[in-house]
């Protein structure tokens, strides 16, 4: 660590003519090569999207004809999309996904932030143990819970309700940890001043701590939302009624129902992918930063 900072100022005066041309020349060729490699890979990465789009824009006959072609014999058509939107449940499933994911995100944020605040700031008996239990619970893999959870939901008569989708999905122990660490960094002086003025805990939490934590709350919200939106196993188990399915589970039933309707399959998949792609285009920066800051704890 110390060597470069020490050697740099010493070298710069006399080495400036040497060092300056030293850096740029090594760049261009390798950088051009790197750009080419990455471009080829990026194009390869887009192929599944492109092929799905082209297929979705074909007629079923063209989609199922050999040799396969990127340009359909009878031209592009929106038939598959129209059929899927008319006959299918995709709009309903999208709303279900939107509603349950939003509810899961809201509940998760409220309960996780308040417990994280308590552990970060309030000196109460048993808090070390509480934090220990929450951190330890990170290790429990959700699939281990599916059988007893199903049993529990069945005995509560909640199978095939929104409750069954929402309630078991709001415990995100890693997020409590992430939020607690963020709250730890907020200077205490701000709160102490408010405490002196006679403000209650709840007011301090909602008017001082939460507004200061907007970036981390946004990152947590985005993660929880995406996770909930894409979750498959639990919603697959907890719901059967077609009008209650979330998008990922609904798509699974489409696959078996439509069978060999390739264009419609792809149109459905693209319609299901669309909302999150739009979210990503809007919140690209926050999502990418969120992966860097909360990503390690968030999976």
């Amino acid at each position, binding site marked *: 660590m110390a060597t470069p900072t020490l050697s740099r100022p010493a070298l710069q005066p006399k*080495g400036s003519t040497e060092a300056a041309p030293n850096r740029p020349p090594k760049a261009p060729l390798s950088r051009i090569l790197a750009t080419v490699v990455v471009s080829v890979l*990026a194009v390869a990465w887009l192929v*599944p999207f492109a092929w799905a789009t082209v297929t979705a824009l074909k007629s079923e006959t063209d989609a199922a004809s050999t040799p396969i072609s990127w340009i359909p014999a009878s031209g592009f058509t929106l038939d598959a999309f129209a059929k899927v939107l008319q006959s299918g449940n995709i709009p309903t499933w999208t709303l279900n996904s939107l509603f349950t994911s939003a509810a899961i995100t809201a509940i998760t944020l409220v309960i996780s932030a308040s417990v994280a605040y*308590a552990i970060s700031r309030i000196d109460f008996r048993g808090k070390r143990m509480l934090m220990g239990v929450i951190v330890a619970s990170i290790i429990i893999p959700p699939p281990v819970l599916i059988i007893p959870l199903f049993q529990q939901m069945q005995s509560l008569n909640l199978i095939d309700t929104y409750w069954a989708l929402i309630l078991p999905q709001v415990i995100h122990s890693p997020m409590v940890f992430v939020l607690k660490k963020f709250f730890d960094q907020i200077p205490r002086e701000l709160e102490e001043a408010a405490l002196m003025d006679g403000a209650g805990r709840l007011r301090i939490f909602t008017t001082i701590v939460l507004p200061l934590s907007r970036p981390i709350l946004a990152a947590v919200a985005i993660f929880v939302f995406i996770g909930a939106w894409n979750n498959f196993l639990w919603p697959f188990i907890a719901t059967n009624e077609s009008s209650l399915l979330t998008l990922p589970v609904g798509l699974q039933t489409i696959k078996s129902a439509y069978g060999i309707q*390739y264009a419609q399959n792809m149109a459905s998949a693209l319609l299901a992918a669309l909302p999150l792609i739009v979210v990503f285009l809007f919140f690209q920066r926050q999502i990418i930063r969120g992966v860097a800051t909360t990503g390690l704890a968030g999976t």
Partner: protein
Amino acid sequence: MSTARTTAPAARSRRSRRDNIHGWAFSAPFLAFFLMFLVWPMVSGAVMSLTGKSLTGANGGFIGLANYAEAFGDSDMWRSLGNTLYFTLISTVPLVVIALALAAIVNMGLPAQWLWRLSFFSPFLLASTVVSLFFAWMYNPELGLFNDLLAKLGIPPVAWLNDPAVAMWAIVIATVWWTVGFNFLLYLAALQNIPQQHYEAASLDGAGGWRQFFSISLPQLGPTTVMIVILQILASLKVFDQIYQMTEGGPGGATRSIVQYVFEAGFTGYRLGYSAAISYIFFGLILVIALAQAFITRKRSA
């Protein structure tokens, strides 16, 4: 209260009692969900695994460790466990190595940084079902892109999802496409945190790009790599979605994962007790790996 001497401790104990109440009040909502939907299922699952309970509610009686004994002699259980470990091994390696390679190249100061991030990360946002639909279609024997590409290269067609020797690899390819962008972003962030002076000093010493990567970047990325590998292993062990959606565990059980076996024992075989026992065997495996990881990282930092 009445004298100056007693006010201080009284105030303190009053405050600490208030802190106790406030602390638990703020924790209560989370704790309620935590107890209801995490602790309780963990406990009731453990109890259930000691019974012969079926999905219809019959045979709830205590049978001791019989389910565990049966599971340890169940060749399908071992096969699913083996498939899961195999998937974990052959998916973790590319998911770490490709992510690192991509991040290292993109970090060379390429133009249009956002474009690369967008391209490699965007599949991560797709639901598993979407990914499975995309790839099942591309793996289609006659109409799929993969066999079309092979044909153009003069290679005979491959029965991607229907050949027991190939199916797991086909699933790994789809999985890499889907999730490598996440590790890629983690590596990219870690690379950007390495102080620039390290590279400047090295290039003054005449170290080239490859030298710099192996002697500066790679060692500096050590802790990140350990984290990514551990998280990837734990994530891969839980595999279910894409396998169930693309092959339903076939052909002939060649890709069935342990989570799918839990699912099938419970919901196809109607044996909740047995299925709970397999869940706990799976949980035991995860615990062992997590403890090994804690042991390794502690040793490293000590």
